[in-house]
C-alpha cells in the first residue's frame, strides 16, 4: 500500500458518512427474539416508518411489497432473497453472503412473519456457487434454530444458471420454476402472483439485512441516516480507476463530488452510477448529483473512469454485454441492443453519418418506454448519458 492509498483509506474511514450497520457484530438470537415477538402488522409499520426502499437498484418501498403479499388471499406465500448479483461492478452482496448470512436469514424471517409465509428461497447466482456449501450449512442451522423456536419457516437455496436477466424479479421467478429466464408481464406483480403463482416478496440481499437492522435498532435510528427520499445507508461496490476499490457502507445522499473526492484518483472523468444499466455522470455534473432516489439511484455499483479511458470503448463494452444478456424475447431489447451496438460501430467506421447518432438516441428512448422488463428499459440509461455527455468521443 502506498502512502497515498493509506492516506485515502484513513480519509474514507474518518468520513462522517461512513457507517457500520451491515457488517457489525450482532447477537442474531436477540434479533430473532424480537422478530418472533412483534406482530406482522408492526413489522410492516416499522419498515414503513423507516422509509426503507429496495437496495437492488429500483428502490421500490419495501413495506408496500409486504403489505401487498399479506393482503392477497392465498394458501401459501413465499419469501425470496434475490442473490443474483449480476450488475457489472456490483459485488457487495457476495461479501454480505460470506460474512453475514444469519442477518439475511433473520431479515427473511421478518418478512415471512409479516406476510405469513412458511417458505423462503435464496436465489443464488451461478457464479457464486462456490459459496453454496457454506451457505447451505448456515441455512440448515438456521432452519433448525427456527424450528426449535416453534416458528414454521424454512429456507432453501436455488442456484441460478448464469443469466443476467434473472436478477429481474419475474425472470428470477421463471428461473426458480425451472423455466427459461424470461420476464413476465406485469401486472400481476410478484406480491400478487409470484413463485408458483403464489404471493411472493422478492428482496435484494442488502434490503433483507436492512430489514433485520431496522427491526433490531428501530426505524428511528435508521431514519436518522440519509435524506428525506433516501433513508438509511447503502453498501457500495467501488471499482474502476480508484486506488481504494472495495465495499463501503455509506449514508445515503452523498453528492458525486464528495464521492469522487473520497474515492477518485484526482483525474476522475466520469462515474458510472448503478452499473452497466445505470447512468454515466461526467465530472461537470458531480456537484449537482446526489447518490440516492432523488438523484441517481444505484444498486451499489460505482465505477470510476479516469481521463485515460475511452468512453466509446466503455459504451461498446456495455452494449456488447446487453446484446448477450438480453433474454431475447421482446423486440425492443433483443433487436434494439444489437442496433445500438452496430450503430455506434458504423458511425465510428464512417459507414453511417455522424447524425445517425440522433436516430440511435431516439431508438434508445423508445426502448426505455416499450421494452418488457427493466433490462431492456434501462439500456437507455448508459447509452443516452454516455452519448449526451461524451458525444465527440462516440462519433469521431
Amino acid at each position: 500500500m502506498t502512502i497515498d492509498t493509506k492516506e485515502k483509506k484513513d480519509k474514507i474511514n474518518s468520513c462522517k458518512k461512513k457507517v457500520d450497520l451491515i457488517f457489525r457484530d450482532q447477537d442474531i438470537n436477540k434479533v430473532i427474539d424480537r422478530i418472533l415477538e412483534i406482530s406482522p402488522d408492526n413489522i410492516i409499520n416499522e419498515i414503513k416508518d423507516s422509509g426503507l426502499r429496495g437496495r437492488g437498484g429500483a428502490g421500490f418501498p419495501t413495506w408496500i411489497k409486504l403489505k401487498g403479499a399479506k393482503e392477497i388471499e392465498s394458501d401459501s406465500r413465499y419469501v425470496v432473497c434475490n442473490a443474483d448479483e449480476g450488475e457489472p461492478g456490483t459485488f457487495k452482496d457476495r461479501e454480505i453472503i460470506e460474512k453475514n448470512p444469519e442477518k439475511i436469514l433473520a431479515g427473511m424471517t421478518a418478512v415471512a412473519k409479516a406476510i405469513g409465509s412458511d417458505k423462503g428461497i435464496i436465489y443464488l447466482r451461478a457464479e457464486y456457487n462456490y459459496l453454496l456449501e457454506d451457505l447451505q450449512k448456515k441455512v440448515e442451522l438456521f432452519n433448525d434454530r427456527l424450528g426449535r423456536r416453534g416458528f414454521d419457516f424454512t429456507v432453501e437455496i436455488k442456484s441460478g444458471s448464469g443469466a443476467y436477466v434473472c436478477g429481474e424479479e419475474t425472470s428470477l421467478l421463471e428461473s426458480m420454476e425451472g423455466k427459461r429466464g424470461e420476464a413476465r408481464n406485469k401486472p400481476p406483480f410478484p406480491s400478487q402472483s409470484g413463485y408458483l403463482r403464489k404471493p411472493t416478496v422478492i428482496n435484494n440481499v442488502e434490503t433483507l439485512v436492512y430489514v433485520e437492522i431496522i427491526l433490531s435498532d428501530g426505524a428511528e435510528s435508521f431514519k436518522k441516516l440519509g435524506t428525506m427520499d433516501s433513508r438509511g445507508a447503502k453498501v457500495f461496490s467501488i471499482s474502476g480507476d480508484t486506488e481504494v476499490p472495495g465495499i463501503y457502507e455509506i449514508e445515503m445522499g452523498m453528492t458525486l463530488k464528495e464521492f469522487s473526492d473520497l474515492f477518485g484518483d484526482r483525474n476522475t472523468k466520469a462515474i458510472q452510477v448503478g452499473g452497466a444499466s445505470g447512468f454515466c455522470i461526467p465530472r461537470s455534473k458531480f456537484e449537482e448529483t446526489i447518490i440516492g432516489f432523488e438523484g441517481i439511484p444505484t444498486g451499489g455499483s460505482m465505477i470510476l473512469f479516469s481521463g485515460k479511458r475511452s468512453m466509446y470503448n466503455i459504451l461498446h463494452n456495455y452494449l456488447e454485454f446487453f446484446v448477450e444478456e438480453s433474454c431475447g424475447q421482446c423486440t425492443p431489447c433483443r433487436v434494439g441492443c444489437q442496433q445500438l451496438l452496430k450503430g455506434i460501430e458504423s458511425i465510428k467506421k464512417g459507414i453511417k453519418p455522424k447524425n445517425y447518432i440522433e436516430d440511435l438516441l431516439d431508438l434508445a428512448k423508445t426502448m426505455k418506454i416499450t421494452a418488457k422488463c427493466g433490462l431492456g428499459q434501462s439500456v437507455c440509461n448508459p447509452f443516452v448519458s454516455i452519448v449526451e455527455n461524451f458525444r465527440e468521443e462516440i462519433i469521431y
Partner: protein
Amino acid sequence: MINLKINNTEVSIKEGSTILDAAKKINIEIPTLCYHEDLCIAGNCRVCVVEQKGVNNLKPACATPVEENMEIYTSSNRVREARKTIIGLLLSEHNNDCLHCYKNGNCELQTLAREYLVDSDKYINILKDYTIDRSSPSIIKDDSKCIKCQRCVRTCAELQDVNALCVSGKGSEIKITSFFEKPMDSIVCTNCGQCVIHCPTGALIERSYIDEVWEVLNNPSRHVVVQTAPAVRVGLGEAVGLEPGQSLTGKMVTALKMLGFDAVFDTNFSADLTIMEEGTELLTRLKKKIKDNENVALPQFTSCSPGWVKYIEHEFPDILEHLSTCKSPQQMLGPLAKTYYAQKMKINPEDIVVVSIMPCTAKKFEANRPEMYSSGYKDVDYVLTTREFGTMIQQAGINFESLEDSECDSILGKHTGAGVIFGVTGGVMEAALRTAYEIVTGREVPFSNLNIMPVRGLDGVKEATIKIENCRAEWKFLENFELKVAVAHGLSNARKLAEQVSAGKSLYHFIEIMACPGGCLSGGGQPIPINDEIRKKRTEAIYAEDESLEFRKSHDNPEIKRIYKDFLKEPLSHKSHELLHTVYTKRKKY
C-alpha cells in the same frame, strides 16, 4: 364492469379484459404479432403498445388488464413512433425477400410494414446466416423469417402438449429450435401443422408439392386421380378469397376437373368406409370382451388423424393396441384407387397417380410412411393442403366463385353426411354411432334427426353414454349395455384421455381423437388465419352439408354397398386387412 376511456371514447367492459379487448369493442383494431386468441399472452413483440395518460412507459395492450378510469390513447405520436420503431427493428433482423416468400400476401409482418410505412434503411440489416430445415415431409422451418413471437412454441406446448419446438439461446442468439437442435424429421413433431397456421410470417410453412402435381397433370401417360378430405370444402373458400363458412363441394369438384384431374374422388367416401371397418372393429372388440371373455384392448381409439397417430406412437407406445388398426380415410382411398378402381377401369395401376387434398400437413407424412404401399405402389403419391389447392386454382386462373357445381366421379366418389362430419371434432364418433347402433339394434340412433349433440361443440373433452336396448339376436350380449364414448381434440386434451388408458383407468369403450383443436376443419393445412369464430363458421357449414345430403349414414352409401359386394366382401375381410388396415411403430421421445 370496468369503465375506461380509449381515445376519449368511453368503454365499459368486464373486469379482467385487456386494453386490446376494450379497443376492439369500439372498433379499434390494435396491431399485434405475438398475440393469438388461441394462446396464452406473451407480450413480447411489443407492437401493440398504447399510451396511458399519466404513465410514462407505453403499455402492451394485449397484456394489460383494464383499470377503472384508465385513459388510453392508441394512435398518439408516441405510440405511432414506437410502433414504427418496433416494426423497423423486426424488419432489420428479418429476411425481407417478400416476393419469393410463400406467405407473400398473407403475412402479418408484411401487413404491418405496409400500414406503418417503415423506412427501408432506418436500421442496419442484422439478418443472420441461416439454413432452411427441409427435412420434414410436412413442414419447412425457415429461421430467417422468424420474428421470435413464440406463437409456434406456445401452440406446440399449450394446444398440443407436444413441445417439439422450443426456445434456445438468449439475446442476439435466441432462436426457435427443437430439443438438441435436431432436424424437424427427427423429433417428436407430429406434423400437425398447428404451428404453421399460428405462425404470423413465413417461418413455418408446409412443404409444397404443387409443382410435382402440375407435372403429373401435364403428363398424358399418367392417370391422375384426386381425393378431397371432408374439411377441405369448408375451408377452400377462404383460400380463394371468399368469406368463411361456405361449403363449396360442387364448385370444388368443378375446379378439380378444370385443373385436369382424370377422376375426382371424395375422401368422404373412404370416411364412410372407415366407419364400416372401424365400427365393425369396435363391435368385434366388444364381442370378444363381453361375450368371449377375451383379453382385448378397450377403449378403442380412432386412427384417422395422423398427427394423433404419431403422437401416441411417441408418447404412449405401450398402448398402441388400443389404436384402431384402420388406416385413415386418405390411406384407404389410395390403395383402392390403385386396385379396385384400376381393375374396374382396366388401367395399369403403375400409371395411376393419387393426389389428395387435405386440411392437414400430417397427411403428407402419413402418405410417406413405409406401411402405406399396400397396393404394391405408393398408395397416395402427393398430398396438398387446402392452401396449396387454393394456390393451384389461382395459378390456373380459375374464377372459382362463378363456377357451376358438379359431382364426384364414381366409384369412389359417393358419400354420406356421416362422411362429411369427419371434418369436425366429434364427427367420426357421431358417424360411427349412427352405423354401429343400427347394426346392433336395427334402429336409428335415438337422437333427434340423427344429430348426436353431446359429441358436438368445441369443449376440449366431450363424453356421452348410449344405452343399447332391444338388440338383434346376434348382438344379444349387448342388451342393456351402456356404451361410453369420449371425444377429444387438440393433443393436450388427447393426452388426458390417453393417460387414463395408460393407467388402466379409462371408463370408455370408444374414443375419438383429432390432433387439431376443432378437428380437421381447423387443421394445419387449412387457410390462415384461424380462430374460434372461423372454427364455428366452418363447423356450421359442415353440419349444414350433412343435413342436406340424401344419405346420412355410412352403411346407406350405395357405393360402399357396391365395394363390399364387388371387391372387399365384408368389413374386416382378408382383403380389407390387406388394403385398409395397418400397423403402428413404437417411437421414442428423443
